[in-house]
């Protein structure tokens, strides 16, 4: 299914974009071994759709080698944030693309080895010279061989050469921090070689990806943009009737709803399985449904073919309130940003209600035919992440623990008792290879409890870690209900007699437990041990960081010029309900 708009639509739209109206900016370079005309325009429009002002650089036809090898090339002058290097099989194989068996197996192996080394060399040079992320495509596996069906019997035949090259290239890239492999072969498989590659276009203009598919390619590549800028979705809020199952449970009854091994119930089962897989990868699921709560809960708890059960939902609002009120409660309970929520509902009225009142939420028109639900979900590029951390994978479980925590809060008399009984343990560690991706992710995503809202990519954090004048710490927070994972980050610039807090943030997930008091006291304590006189910090207000606005004055910092300053002659208060360990 190709639901994309025409290329000409994007080309005209691109001319109308005013990138100055967007706060987020991005420089994208496109390098290719063949004509990729139009790709830049589609990327610009798709960036503008997600409120990113994007400027592009497109290398001249097949000039990617020169662009990367020449250190004063226009590519480096452009200083991209993301660079896409899109290569095709024909150009890498040269004449072997047509005559693979003109040389023997040893030479074929040597050929692939050489090409692999060239690519590694290009990657290394690029990484050394540029701060840009590099996304390099793998090679499309040829489907034709002059040997026809016998090709599979040939040792290291033309298909095997490319499979081998892809696998070795991918292995190499796996260990490179800012380099990623884009599955171009998968793209061509998804849409079909005979559609994507069209001889008419190829002979006419050396076009190897037909114009009709350039928008789909751009859609895939935008996944990287969304990941780098952390504009991805963390939570899917779902309707129940005609979304997770067919029919209306209040009318059709427990036995009457469509959910099970026979059509159309099997389409809903399949949809639920795909949602469960996203849940297992760390996407939070929630329910917003107009229903008799008991009817719906019966299905969720007892229906033999239900895949998603109560434990998979971080929050369930099943009642007769309007969906907007429910949505607001979900947002409050889960404490996540509106812009990280996706709402899936079959009813256009409900979608319109949410879309007009809470436009930051992405509402999805899933249509009324369950046949399409799965493909709509799988074509989305909103859940991608350049790094899936352990914390991501555990997120669903952590929200469940939080549900228990809230129930417990309801059962104790006051907040102090609650905090004491939570048994909170904080482990503060210096950043290391394992925590760097998570630390970067937190700086990119945390909006509310964030003193300066400075956004850092992994490369930036790595630079700080290697800088003796910088102290990068993160904290893992556990309590009797579970492990919240790495949820706090502090970055401090150490000068001779004073320290400057560059970044101080905490995930909103653990707000309200005075954990921040513990982290701050640890920084101050450490400064004191190193005989520092003052710790300075600044608060940079944003639309979202009101929760931390009074943090500095509340904790004994005094305004001095541009900074808030804590003099280490003062006492450092350490909260009693926390057990803090510094490792």
């Amino acid at each position: 299914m190709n639901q994309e708009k025409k290329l000409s639509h994007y080309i005209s739209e691109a001319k109308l974009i005013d990138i100055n109206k967007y706060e987020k900016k991005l420089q994208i370079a496109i390098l290719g071994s063949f004509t990729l005309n139009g790709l830049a325009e589609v990327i610009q429009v798709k960036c503008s759709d997600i409120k990113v002002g994007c400027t592009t650089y497109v290398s001249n036809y097949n000039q990617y080698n020169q662009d990367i090898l020449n250190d004063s090339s226009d590519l480096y002058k452009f200083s991209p944030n993301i660079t896409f290097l899109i290569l095709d099989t024909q150009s890498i194989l040269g004449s072997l693309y047509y005559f693979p068996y003109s040389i023997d197996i040893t030479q074929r192996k040597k050929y692939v080895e050489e090409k692999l080394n060239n690519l590694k060399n290009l990657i290394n040079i690029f990484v050394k010279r540029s701060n840009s992320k590099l996304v390099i495509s793998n090679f499309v596996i040829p489907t034709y061989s002059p040997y026809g069906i016998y090709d599979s019997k040939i040792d290291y035949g033309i298909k095997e050469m490319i499979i081998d090259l892809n696998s070795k290239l991918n292995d190499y890239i796996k260990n490179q921090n800012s380099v990623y492999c884009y599955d171009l072969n998968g793209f061509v498989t998804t849409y079909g070689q005979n559609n994507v590659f069209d001889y008419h276009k190829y002979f006419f203009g050396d076009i190897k990806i037909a114009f009709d598919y350039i928008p789909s390619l751009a859609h895939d590549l935008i996944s990287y943009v969304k990941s780098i800028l952390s504009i991805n979705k963390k939570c899917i809020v779902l309707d129940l009737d005609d979304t997770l199952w067919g029919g209306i449970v209040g009318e059709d009854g427990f036995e009457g709803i469509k959910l099970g091994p026979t059509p159309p119930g099997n389409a809903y089962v399949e949809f639920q399985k795909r949602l469960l897989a996203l849940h297992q990868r760390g996407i939070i699921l929630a329910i917003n449904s107009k229903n008799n709560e008991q009817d719906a809960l019966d299905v969720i708890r007892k229906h033999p073919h239900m895949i998603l059960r109560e434990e998979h939902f971080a929050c369930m609002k099943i009642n007769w309130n309007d969906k907007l009120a429910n949505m607001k409660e979900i947002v409050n309970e889960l404490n996540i940003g509106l812009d990280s929520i996706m709402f899936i509902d079959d009813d256009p009225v409900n979608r319109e209600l949410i879309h007009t009142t809470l436009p930051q939420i992405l509402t999805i028109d899933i249509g009324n035919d369950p046949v399409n639900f799965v493909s709509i979900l799988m074509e989305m590029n909103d859940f991608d992440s350049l790094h899936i951390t352990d914390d991501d994978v555990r997120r669903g479980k952590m929200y469940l623990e939080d549900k228990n925590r809230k129930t417990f809060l309801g059962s104790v008399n006051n907040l102090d008792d609650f905090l004491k009984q939570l048994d909170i343990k904080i482990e503060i560690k210096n950043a290391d290879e394992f925590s760097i991706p998570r630390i970067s992710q937190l700086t990119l995503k945390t909006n509310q409890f964030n003193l300066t809202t400075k956004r850092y990519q992994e490369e930036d954090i790595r630079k700080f870690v290697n800088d003796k004048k910088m102290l990068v710490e993160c904290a893992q927070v556990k309590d009797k209900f579970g492990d919240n994972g790495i949820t706090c980050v502090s970055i401090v610039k150490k000068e001779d007699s004073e320290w400057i807090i560059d970044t101080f943030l905490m995930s909103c997930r653990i707000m309200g437990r005075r954990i921040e008091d513990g982290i701050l006291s640890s920084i101050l304590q450490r400064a004191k041990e190193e005989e520092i006189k003052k710790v300075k910090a600044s608060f940079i207000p944003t639309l979202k960081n009101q929760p931390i606005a009074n943090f500095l004055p509340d904790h004994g910092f005094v305004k001095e010029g541009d900074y808030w300053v804590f003099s280490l002659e003062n006492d450092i208060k350490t909260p009693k309900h926390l057990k803090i360990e510094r490792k």
Partner: protein
Amino acid sequence: MNIPLSEINDMSGSQSIGTWDSFNVYVLLNEIETEFNVRFTLDESMDIKNVGDFKRHLKNHGVILDDS
């Protein structure tokens, strides 16, 4: 190509339209093919230099155009 409809006639082409470059023409050709459900041959594609050429080749493929 950002040309007002009123300014387009059969002679519109690389001579009169500054944005009529090989890429734009090719996108146009591709979308005309999709719109009218025809496939131009390579010769026809190479022959197209202006709007009139497009019309002529479309007629050869049996497309009836309202020329008024």
